[in-house]
Every structure is written in C-alpha cells, then in structure tokens.
C-alpha cells in the first residue's frame, strides 16, 4: 500500500493539470498563461497539461478581477474540481482587484471567494513568474502531503 501511495504522491507532484479561468481580465495575464504552453517555455515538460474541464484539473489558474457577478461561477468551478487541488491567483487584479479594487462591483482578490495556494504578482506577470508560481504551489502541496524533510 505504501508503494502505491508513493507513486500517487509522485504523480501529484509531477502531473499538475491546469484549468484556466478568466474573471474578466484584460487578456494580458491570459496570453502570458498561454505563452507558457508554447515551445518557448514548454511547460508540458513538467507534466503540465492545459485541460478545458475542471473535473480533470488539479490546479485552477485565476486571472482578472473577481466581481459580484462572476464570484459564483468561480466558486462553482472550484467546487467541481476533485481534491487534492490548488489555486493560483495571477496578476495584480487576481491578487487584490488591482486598479479596479475601489469599484463598486469588485469583490477584491480571488482569496475573498476561494482559498488561494500561491500568488503571482505582476501586470501582467512574465511566463517565468507564472511557472515559478506553479513551483511554489507544488511546494505547498508537498507540505500538505508531508513530503518535506
């Protein structure tokens, strides 16, 4: 049983499938996320696949400003992902609401609605920063699984 658990834990660290949700971002962060999938950065070499379905995903990448209209959608997508799962908030808007934080319809950061594992600041963040965010999130997952020394 422990061998199987070892393999499952190894798989959890080596194959984070991401689903990408845009809470009304300006598209800046989104194209940087998609740039990670190009041959230039090739995140598939770390086992990361961009899936279109929260039911298959392990990591939720959220970009853009969460507002009162789409917070239910965000929560719904989060709830549809099977455990264990992680959330990465990307860009200034995802972190705090960014320049829109004082607007009457804006809730604030992603963490006002769902728990966030890692934050990637920037407007927009570079692809390197997004990859770094995934690595940070995996470190958190390691802590949860009790794999750190």
């Amino acid at each position, binding site marked *: 049983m422990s061998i*199987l*658990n070892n*393999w*499952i*834990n*190894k*798989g*959890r660290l*080596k*194959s984070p*499938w991401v689903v990408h949700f845009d809470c009304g971002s300006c598209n800046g962060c989104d194209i940087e996320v998609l740039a990670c*999938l190009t*041959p230039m950065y*090739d995140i*598939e*070499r*770390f*086992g990361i*696949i*961009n*899936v*279109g*379905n929260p*039911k*298959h995903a*392990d990591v939720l990448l959220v970009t853009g400003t969460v507002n009162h209209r789409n917070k239910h959608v965000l929560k719904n997508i989060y709830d*549809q992902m*099977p*455990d*264990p799962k992680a959330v990465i908030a990307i860009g200034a808007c995802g972190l705090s609401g960014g320049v829109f934080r004082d607007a009457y319809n804006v809730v604030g950061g992603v963490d006002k609605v769902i728990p966030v594992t890692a934050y990637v600041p920037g407007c927009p963040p570079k692809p390197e920063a997004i990859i770094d965010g995934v690595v940070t999130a995996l470190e958190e997952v390691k802590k949860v699984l009790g794999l750190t020394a």
Partner: protein
Amino acid sequence: MADIIIALIAVILAPIVGGLISGVDRKITARLQSRFGPPILQPFYDVFKLLGKTPMVINSWQVLCAYVYLAASMLCVFLFFMQSDLLLIFFVLTIGAVFLVMGALSTPNSPYSQIGAQRELMQMLTYEPLLILVFVAIAMVTGSFKVSDALAYPKPLLTQLPLIFIVLGYALTIKLRKSPFDISASHHAHQEIVRGVLTEYSGPFLALIEIAHWYEVIFVLALCGLFWATNLFGMLVLLVITYFLEIIVDNVSARMTWRWMLKGALSVGLVLSFINIVWVYTAG
C-alpha cells in the same frame, strides 16, 4: 495451457507497454513541435495521480461503464493472445466501446458529454465496418477467423493484403482518436468540446479509462502485427513504422468534422478493401 499463461502475461504486461508507448508518443510529438516534451514515464504519473484523487461521479452508471470498458479491453487483449476467434474479439471490443458511450450518455444535463457520446457513435459507425472487412479479408486468405491460423500462415499477410493494411491504418487512427479523427475526445491542448465523451469522468474513473485505452493500443498494434507474423523482427519493424506514421499524421493534420470522417474514411476504406478482396478472390 501454455496459451492461457501467455495470455495472462500479456494482460499483465499490456498496460506497462501501452503506457510506455504513449509516453514515447508524447515525447516524439513534442520533438516534432520543437519542444522538449514530458518524461517517458509521464502517462504513469498522470494515471497514478488520477487514481489518488477523490472520486466524484454524476451517477452510479458511470462507475459501472468505466469498469466494463476496462474489462472489455482486457478481455480483448486476453482473447487475442489466447489466439482466439477474431469475430469474438470484435464483439467484445464493440461492447467496451458501447459502454463508454453509455456512460457519457447517462448524464443528461451535460451537453458536452452528449455531443462527445454522439460523435463517438459516429466514429464507431466508421471504423467498425472497416475492421470487419479487415477480418473478412484475413479469413479469406488464411481460411479461418482464428488468430492461430493467421499466425501459422507461411507468408506475411501484407504481401497479399497491402490495401487492407491501409484500411486497418484508417481504423487504427480513428480507434486511437488521433488527428484528423480526434473528434469525440482528444488529448493535449485541443479542447473545443472539453474532451467530449470523457467530460463527466474524473479522478479514478478517468484513470480506469486511460488504462483501458492502453490495452486498446496494445490490441490494435497486435492486430497490425498479424500482417507480418512470419518473423518477429519484421513484425517489430512494421509496428514501429506504422505507429511512427500515425504520430506524423496526428501532427500534420487538423481535426475534421464527423461528416468528413464518415465520407472520407468509409469511401476510401470500402473501395480499397473491395479491390483487395476481389484481387484475393480472383488470384486465389
């Protein structure tokens, strides 16, 4: 008795070899796209991760369907390496595919799953007549539907059935859901119907379907291997060339619509197999 032992070993080894083949597939695909690509063991990491996730199901039918699909694929490999009847294997294969569609159809509130299921049915409608023609052609040459007779045939079947092998190539591309026939579900970044027939499967049940798919890869490759059964080296060369061509076709072609698939694959497949069968009939 020896047959059963060989078949059991094949059933145990098939997912390991199938997983490695799909790892190599992803690596070669990445190299063709100037990427570095994931490690060869990546499919195993994916499946073990999925096995460790919390099971989430829409209804209990899905669970049954995933298990039956896996069982049917395993039975296919088992029967093939038992050197059993090709027609029996064909029926078992069909049952597995039908249960996959049933599982997807059992979720009435999911339009993606419904579309995926209907497209999968279209795919079955395309590859099954081709597959049965391949079996009929093999039976015409060797005199029976038994795999053992095909293996015992003194000449490579490819010399008598070259066009039928091309037809099998079409059926193989559709069965393995590779471009341009990846219309019901597909891997990697194509996701316009969010993996269609697999939309509502998640976690451990998706892992079962992935393992069943590896069994099918092995079964389909074994079927191709029948065409050069006279020596092992020739068979290996044939399989490597065939699978490499599949990967090339997968990479150079875009996804097509199901109407195109039905017209293209069926017309080409039926004509080629008709010519080959008439040729075998007149020559033999």
